[in-house]
């Protein structure tokens, strides 16, 4: 028996799907809408680009905070990706004492509440007499990004055929050549998703950054937080729209990039 089309359209799973999508995207929609509002207040008074003009001409503090966020995100994600990938390859490839412990300990920063990591890093840095600033934020972000990269790369490594590596060694490649020519290209999708996850996590982190930041190292989330006291300015909405667009473009091109790799 075939159900009529309109019943299909209102099936349970579709409703859940629609509600979920709405729940996820409505706030973003409101944000985008109000970035074009003429007035500052919550009521709609007319279309205007004044907040975008203000964003690009008269918001140097905001851009400095954004710049700090970008520097920290890219550099910490990069370093975390390199260390995390090498760590995952090592743990997967070699057998050594404490290997099991190493795997478990690496996940610890993922499970620990951020506030504990933040406080302990702060105590650590002040104990060593390291001056708080962009560098300490960078170190902190590398430390919490590491397990994510490690996990993603490890998952990818566990899934591919070990005999390829044996074949590579069999055909005369050195250990290093095998790493560069065989293992890395094959795990590239895992590495790239690890890198992107790390960038995202770093960009949005508030709690840990709050503790380890210092003079001249205000990141975007910290800036937005202190700005809330004066009501969130629509300039921040405008910046969010620009960032959403940037993310969409990045995600789209990355997808094509990853597909190409996977196809190879």
């Amino acid at each position, binding site marked *: 028996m075939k159900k009529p089309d309109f019943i299909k359209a209102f099936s349970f799973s579709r409703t859940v799907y629609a509600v979920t999508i709405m729940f996820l995207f409505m706030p973003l929609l409101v944000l985008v809408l109000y970035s074009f509002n003429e*007035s*500052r*207040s*919550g*009521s709609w*008074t007319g279309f205007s680009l004044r907040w975008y003009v203000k964003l690009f001409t*008269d918001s*140097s*503090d905001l851009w400095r905070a954004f710049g700090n966020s970008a*520097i920290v995100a*890219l*550099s910490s994600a*990069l*370093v975390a990706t390199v260390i995390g990938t090498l760590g995952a390859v090592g743990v997967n490839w070699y057998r050594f004492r404490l290997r099991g412990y190493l795997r478990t300990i690496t996940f610890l920063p993922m499970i620990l509440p951020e506030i504990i990591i933040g406080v302990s890093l*702060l105590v650590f*840095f*002040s104990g060593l007499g390291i*001056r*708080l*600033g*962009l*560098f300490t934020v*960078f170190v902190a972000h590398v430390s919490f990004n590491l397990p994510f990269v490690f996990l993603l790369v490890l998952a990818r490594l566990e899934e591919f055929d070990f005999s390829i590596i044996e074949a590579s060694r069999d055909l005369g490649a050195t250990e290093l050549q095998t790493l560069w020519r065989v293992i890395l290209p094959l795990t590239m999708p895992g590495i790239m998703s690890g890198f992107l996850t790390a960038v995202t996590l770093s960009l949005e982190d508030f709690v840990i950054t709050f*503790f380890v*930041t*210092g*003079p*001249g*190292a*205000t990141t975007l989330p910290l*800036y937005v*937080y*202190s*700005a*809330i*006291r*004066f*009501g969130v300015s629509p300039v921040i909405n405008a910046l969010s729209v620009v960032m959403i667009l940037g993310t969409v473009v990045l995600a789209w091109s990355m997808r094509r990039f990853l597909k190409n790799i996977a196809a190879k």
Partner: protein
Amino acid sequence: MKRKYFTAIAAACVLVLLGSCSGSKDRLYLYNWIYYIPEDVIEDFQKESGIRVVVDSYASNEEMYNKLLAGGKGYDIVVPSGDYVSIMIAGGMLQRLDMGKIPNYANLDASALNRIRFDTGNRFSIPFMMGAAGVSVNKTKVSGYEHSWNIFERNDLNGRMTMLDDMREILGAALKYLGYSVNDSDPAHLEEARLVVEEWKPNLVKFDAESFARGFAGGEFWVVQGYAENVYIEYEPSRYSEIDFFFPKEGMPMYMDSFCILKDAENVEAAYKFINFMLRPDIAARVSDYLMLPSPNVPARALMTVTPNYQFEDLAKGEFKEDLGAQTLLLYNEVWRRIRVGN
């Protein structure tokens, strides 16, 4: 090809990180309230003096104080409010100032300076801005009220009023309403104050310091306690006449935000130059115009082009919040906890 790209990013990032660690000689690190000094004023100072100013912002005294206490080194100037000035003096965090380097100090209103108790004689702090939280009423919705704290007793405005989520502001308001000092340390007086707040509380939607102004502008709340600048910024100038902002006749707690130079400041000379620059009448007037607040800087008042949200004289009935001392602070905390959480 891909690898080269990554190496380039890595190299760039490392360079920037290294660059940010060195060369702090001709820089001034300012740790200030957010949106307190307009960016073009900072830029003018940079142009005039050749000193680069690096600004970081905080949203509360507690945030700033705890950051510094936890080892946040490297800042030169901070801008604490009165009570935190005395806390930081007691903690040995501030430098004794050399007034010879701040000739523009003479521009400040002596009547305001004389009322300062948190740093009598301004040995460690230079007043910057002075103000107070008051009550804003939406005139299109509410009428027949006095300019008094008793507006929060009105049952008919139940669910239309908010007060700040701030212990000193709420207890200070209640203490003033009863005719006591905002810094009163008598437990019996505080108990009376608590009962007053308990009477207000059922009429309030919430204690809120962040989004009340938006709710007020949107017509959701009709009577809010808060800072005038937060309320006015949500309004278009054409609708300013809808707002009645007043300081209750009984008086209110008041703040004085002051420039202080930290003991471990590295660029002391630059800090003096900056403070003196900020006290110049034309600069003080620009800041006051931007904030729409009256200036404690006497010659600056004539140079202002914007009508402030209230007049300097209105602050006469206010009383500066002072440091309570550890013992009394515990008492306040307990009373506040009972108000917020219940018994």
